[in-house]
């Protein structure tokens, strides 16, 4: 039963080979859907291109349905999958800083790596910026640490937070995603086209 590597069904020697293969697929999909173009990515915030919203929510919904279905079929034990801890205020403030960073720079870390791979100089500068940002965080860690370690709610999921069955959450997520797709198409028809 999965996950295969942690349960020793695939020997650990395969770990990094799998990492590179998964990375290749991830990079290929991102580049092929246009995620190496900052102007395409930024379109979601101005209504001229909703690729980010569509790719992001389609993949989230497909992934969550697939994982819970594999769990239902006993191919995978969902309780063994890594759920990152929720540090409430760190997640909120960190996310907000990333939101501003995205609008200024036009990439996120994954997409900037794709942009670097196809020769976008703006992507390279953004990636250097990322490393400077990580350096600033690490060097000022003693100041940030109390905030960084505060409001730890543990490894919780929406099932714990909302107290309803995961299947209802997935159903609501799917409906919300479909509604968002329909609304985004309506908006895009009204917004002036941008060519890039």
């Amino acid at each position: 039963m999965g996950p295969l590597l942690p349960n020793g069904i695939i020997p650990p020697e395969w770990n990094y080979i799998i990492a590179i293969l998964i990375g290749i697929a991830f990079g290929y999909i991102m580049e092929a859907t246009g995620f190496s173009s900052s102007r395409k990515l930024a379109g979601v915030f101005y209504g001229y291109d909703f690729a980010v919203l569509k790719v992001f929510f389609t993949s989230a919904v497909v992934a969550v349905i697939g994982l819970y279905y594999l769990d239902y079929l006993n191919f995978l034990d969902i309780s063994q999958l890594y759920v990152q801890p929720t540090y409430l205020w760190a997640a909120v403030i960190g996310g907000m800083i990333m939101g501003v960073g995205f609008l200024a720079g036009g990439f996120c870390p994954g997409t900037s790596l794709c942009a670097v791979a196809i020769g976008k100089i703006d992507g390279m500068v953004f990636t250097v910026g990322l490393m400077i940002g990580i350096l600033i965080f690490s060097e000022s860690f003693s100041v940030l640490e109390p905030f960084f370690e505060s409001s730890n709610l543990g490894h919780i999921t929406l099932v714990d937070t909302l107290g309803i069955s995961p299947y209802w959450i997935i159903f609501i997520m799917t409906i919300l995603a479909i509604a968002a797709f329909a609304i985004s198409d309506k908006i895009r028809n009204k917004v002036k086209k941008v060519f890039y």
Partner: protein
Amino acid sequence: MKKKKQKNRHVYWNPYFGGFLLGLLIILTFYLTGRGLGASGALKSGVVTMVHTVAPTHAENNAYYSKFLKEGEFPMNNWLVFEAIGVILGAFLSGALTGRLNLKVQHSPKITSRRRLIFALIGGVLFGLGAQIARGCTSGAALSGMAVLATAGFITMIAIFGTGYLVAYFFRKNWI
């Protein structure tokens, strides 16, 4: 020919098709490794390695770097680093097959390359900082988190997109 409609030069995959494949890839990643995808983690390993090489004692005394500097282990010897190498290879492959390999600065015609690069640097610094505070970026925290219904994933996603819409007006000249 003059009446030919203006179109985007690049032809990309249908976003639903791309999203579907990405969803399958996330399932496969969790099924094989028990964890999701990531991107900023590899850059963190890079920074830790660089600082440790330039100033070893400084890195070992810092409470954050030292988390990733265990005795006899190299921070670059990490799943996410290998995954990031794969991301660059995969994106290069896709770009090469579709003729998108091109050394250039992409920017709106309303702004100069210089302005684009300055904002790219500022955006990168902010994103790098934010991704450390939130313990992950759009792929590691938001997307992979949402795939397992992690509360942190949804909070991070709403914070990134919500703030993006709030501040979009101030950056509009850069994009439209």
